[in-house]
């Protein structure tokens, strides 16, 4: 079994508690307008557009016509990502659990645990189960960073080998959700309750958009009303950096004001989510 790994960050202080290695998988069922890493959304379609543009000659085709990436030659200029018409990246490694573990073993002594992210890592449920089982043998914790598109209640096996989920609740209002994430929100909201109920909700995150008073409030109200005082609730400011240009026009070309975001954190706390704060 192999899974497409977009990136491994050996030391991260923003992907859960302590120092963690973050593993980013390629591919996501959502297509959020505000995605900061749109190149992680789709798998490469092999169109070849990027191959020509690589200044380092790091891209080419293999015998089957698949695009291959030479890590050694790559200079990390990200030209390929900019030119890709399909929100994909050629810089993806299809790794086995053992291959991934080989890289993780170097990090293990220095970290509290690993966090899998994406894209959407739960698309690789079977892979995660095996990976987490191995990481736990080394005494480290495993967290899942998820958009909530996986039905954890129907298949809770991955939860059994992990400390839990850091869940994005991006939009609650129907119309806003349809615009923002192009995916039904029901499963996300069901997961919120389910994970909370089984004690596997590590934190919830919501992005606050400039000028979207009603939409922001509705999401924050819903989440705060459900999670209560124990689960951390991170209120994140929208930042245009990395967002596809056409969507920047819709969502805003400036980042959300700190004070504006603080209003929603205060609202969340009022409604009982005492661990709500702006990051």
């Amino acid at each position, binding site marked *: 079994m192999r899974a497409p790994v977009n990136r491994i960050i050996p030391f991260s202080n923003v*992907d859960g508690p302590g120092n963690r290695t973050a593993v980013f998988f390629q591919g996501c069922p959502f297509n959020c307008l505000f995605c900061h890493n749109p190149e992680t959304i789709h798998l490469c379609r092999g169109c070849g557009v990027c191959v020509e543009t690589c200044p380092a000659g790091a891209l080419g085709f293999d015998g089957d016509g698949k695009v291959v990436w030479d890590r050694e030659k790559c200079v990390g200029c990200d030209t390929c990502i900019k030119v890709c018409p399909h929100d994909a990246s050629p810089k993806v490694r299809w790794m086995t659990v053992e291959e991934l573990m080989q890289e993780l073993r170097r990090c293990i002594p220095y970290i509290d645990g690993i966090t899998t992210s994406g894209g959407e890592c739960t698309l690789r449920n079977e892979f995660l189960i095996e990976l987490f089982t191995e990481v736990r043998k080394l005494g480290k914790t495993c967290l899942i960073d998820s958009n909530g598109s996986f039905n954890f209640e129907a298949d809770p096996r991955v939860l059994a080998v992990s400390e839990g989920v850091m869940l994005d609740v991006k939009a609650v209002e129907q119309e806003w959700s349809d615009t923002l994430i192009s995916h039904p929100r029901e499963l996300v909201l069901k997961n919120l309750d389910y994970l909370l109920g089984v004690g596997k909700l590590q934190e919830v995150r919501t992005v606050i958009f400039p000028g979207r008073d009603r939409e922001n409030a509705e999401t924050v109200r819903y989440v705060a009303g459900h999670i209560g005082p124990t689960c951390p609730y991170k209120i994140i400011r929208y930042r245009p950096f990395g967002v596809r240009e056409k969507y920047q026009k819709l969502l805003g070309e400036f980042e959300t004001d700190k004070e504006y975001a603080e209003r929603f954190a205060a609202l969340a706390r009022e409604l009982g989510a005492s661990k709500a704060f702006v990051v």
Partner: protein
Amino acid sequence: MSDALNIIQDPTLTYHQELLALARLGESTDDSLRYSDAYYEAKKKGALCDLNEGVMPYRPRYICPDYSLLFEKGCKFLALEPPKDLLEAVNALEIFYCHVPSITSFPVYLGDLDKLLEPFVVKEDRAFAKKVLGLFLRNIDRVQTDSFVHADIGPEDSVTGRLLLELTEEMQLAIPNLTLRYDPERTSDDFALACVKCMLKTAKPSFANHRLFVSEWGEDYAIASCYNGLSIGGGGFTLPRLRLYECALDAKSPEDFLARELPRHIDLQLEYMDKRVKFIVEQSSFFKTNFLVTEGFVKQENFTGMFGVVGLAECCNYLLGITDKKKGFGMNDEATALGLKIMDAIDARVKAHEAPYCDAYGHRYRLHAQVGIDSDGMDDSPGTRIPIGVEPPMLDQLEVNEKFHPYFPTGTGDIFKFEETWLKTPEAILPIIKASLSRGLRYFSGYLENNDVVRVTGYLVKKSEIEKLRAKKQSLNNVTVFGMGAQDGGHALDRRIQEHDESAG
């Protein structure tokens, strides 16, 4: 114009700095301590460097008095009784410090301040103790005006340790340098986290690998000056350094270097050290009459010579014909392996040398990864460090350090610069430090990129003080001028920044 007149007319020198410069000039008028022609030739070529220690040493380079003795017995020479309370203790130390010589004429080791002062601090009201310690730190900063002045705390948590951290944060002073002696079994996570927070905001304390130092020196070791391991009640006679890049310039190959040029230069440096150590012990009056010796605050047998090296990275890159340092030592397994071979060779040859005196260490000198001086520019990186500006991601950098740090009982270290978000997550830094120390790292320093107080190569300076010198104004701290030189010539403040999600890239 004479050299003396130059000094006297320099607008950027304080009175005290002029005095020291004139003393150095005076010392240089005697040349009776002579070395072999080959030594002078190698020095002229830049392969050997005496760090401007002066030609007529009238004291050991680094002196680490046993301050606990002052508190037990007092000091006859200075007419000090054993202190009975915090005010007396602090006053006794302040007086004593003014009489501890060193290469810089400032005390490079102020003692294990928490251990020394805790019995007095706990008898006082916390606010009063804090006030007294604050004035103590202010006295040190304004009187011992040199960043190589160094104090130690830990391994255990203490009221004094906490107060010193609080004050360090509040006062934002470059002096003194500060080290936490970290032991995973004796240092609580809570205290270590307080130290991480303080380190991010003030560039101190650094973390010393307590167990490693104890295994080499016993419990009574000091971290002095930059990051130098030495015995309490002893010190370092002298610290010259091999500039390894220049040592390699005449070698035809790595093999030739290891067989010929390296041993040749090692022996020349040993010759220099032997002569100098003998001179300090036998000729100069320090070990005969100084009160530190006669009253037992230091013992001659607890001193050793520090065998310094710099520029291992450039040496390896040169010998392997690597011109792009981004692909060189630290990032390149072949270069790193050669580095280890060279260090093994230096270690073996220095250990095989029977040194005069140094009784406590079986008549042996001990290795030191010298931190560089401003005139090194970009030719020789400090000790065994990866050149500034091409540092790999933190994990790789730590792994390289862990291999080289064990060679250097008299000190080595590396510095990591963090961006702002790490201040919110000190608990993400502590596991990194802990793991690396347990894997052989000797000494870890860090600071936040936007600080005023920053760590240059081993010592601390204020960026605002460097700006004063640039404006041709005086800086009270003697070391600011080195900081300016290291910034200009060695780009010492441009080291890699650890982003919030340091990528393998």
